[in-house]
């Protein structure tokens, strides 16, 4: 769920940009480090960015009637790790704003924070915590949590920007959460299931193409895909 261009008051838009910036800079450093060590990694990272864009452009079979798209950041965080996802997610969000008018330039900071920072970290955290659980469970929870965390963050951002005159922040949060929950909660479940099918299918490919894919964003060995 992208916050539309101009929807946030200027101060909020600026504040979220400042808050998201360190994560993006960290991601950019990480990408720069990887690219210095292995120049060819930029091609793999470009492909990863394009993959994330395409994944988020897939139309899901109707969830509660409306057409909806996955966020793609949960799967991305599991495969490429959150720091890299912060940068790739920012690039993808910028392109989504420019090419599809999803989100915007002034709201880029807010959207980056919810979709490229909070979602990936929350999802990846759950995925790592469930390391000992069956892979399907870990992936499902990781992807679904990434989705829900993104959505809760967005609702909170909107509530902070538009507190209810009577019931205040909490009331506004409940309202924004409620209005979009109709589409977002089933979406999280569906995306979780998709994530499981996707990661399972990736395992079965195990072709030469996938060598190095999981290691793109990883400092240590043994990341998700080849785990």
């Amino acid at each position: 769920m992208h916050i539309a261009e101009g929807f946030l008051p200027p101060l909020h838009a600026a504040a979220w940009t400042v808050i998201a910036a360190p994560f993006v800079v960290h991601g950019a450093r990480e990408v720069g480090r990887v690219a210095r060590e292995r120049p060819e990694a930029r091609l793999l990272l470009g492909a990863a960015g394009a993959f994330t864009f395409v994944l988020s452009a897939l139309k899901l079979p109707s969830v509660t009637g409306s057409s909806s798209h996955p966020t793609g950041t949960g799967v991305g965080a599991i495969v490429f790790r959150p720091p890299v996802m912060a940068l790739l997610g920012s690039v993808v969000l910028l392109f989504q704003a420019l090419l599809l008018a999803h989100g915007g330039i002034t709201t880029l900071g807010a959207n980056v924070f919810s979709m490229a920072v909070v979602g990936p970290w929350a999802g990846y955290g759950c995925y790592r915590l469930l390391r000992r659980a069956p892979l399907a469970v870990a992936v499902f929870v990781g992807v679904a949590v990434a989705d829900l965390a993104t959505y809760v963050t967005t609702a909170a951002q909107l509530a902070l920007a538009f507190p209810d005159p009577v019931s205040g922040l909490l009331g506004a949060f409940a309202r924004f959460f409620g209005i979009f929950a109709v589409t977002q909660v089933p979406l999280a479940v569906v995306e979780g299931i998709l994530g499981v099918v996707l990661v399972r299918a990736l395992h079965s490919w195990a072709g030469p193409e996938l060598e190095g894919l999981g290691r793109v964003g990883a400092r240590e060995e043994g990341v998700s895909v080849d785990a």
Partner: protein
Amino acid sequence: MTHRLTRHEPPAVPAVLAAAGVHAGYPGGPDVLDCVSLEVARGRRVALLGANGSGKTTLLRCLSGAHRPGAGEVLVDGRPLRHRSGALGEHRQRVQLVLQDPDDQLFSADVRRDVSFGPVNLGLPDAQVRTRVEEALTALGVAHLADRAVHQLSYGQRKRVAVAGAVAMRPEVLLLDEPTAGLDPRGVGELLAALERLEGLGTTVVMATHDVDLAWSWADEVAVVVDRVVRQDVLVKVLTDTDLLRSAGLTPPWPVRLLRALGREVDVLDPPRTAADVAALLA
């Protein structure tokens, strides 16, 4: 050459697959096809010729039900195709399209599982799925590859596995988009042999290609896509029409070019398809 005007001379048996006055295009662009008609009679080999970007693929996508025409109809056994999910599902069991790039059609890591994709979606019981998979793999001559990983196969093998995936749906009509593109002569031979086996099982095959020599050696009828319309006739009538071919960005097949250069006509009923045929004619 004249249009085949089906409305004036209706054949006794309706074509197994036909397009009637089909208009098709993509959002934001002009029409790619403009009142196109095409007929595929059961058991007749139809080659759909045209330059890249002429609309061959769009026409195949219309016929397969993947693309909904802006106007006009696609008919199966004379009955118009309805774009409702039930009717479309039924249509897809009867008409299968095989795309040019096999990698666009292979979704699973191993061959057997990939070929089973369609039958499983049909909701068939396991035993029947297995039968169909073996049958399709055998027909395409790739039964020995059943347990291999898709990425270990050569391009020609992947191509035949992709066709097997369509064949496992047991379609009446198989539409092939540029089936020989990128294949070496041996690969082409193996594919054509497999198609002949399928025809023996009752499948009607339509092939889109820009390889005029291939069409000459294989087809009964040719439909040329040119300037957004289709002109269809028996093989020789179309492939000796130099003007038509030129406007389609194609050249006549070599036997036609040679016989023309020698000032001889080409027999409509018994065209010389191979070098041996031509030699026999010239000797």
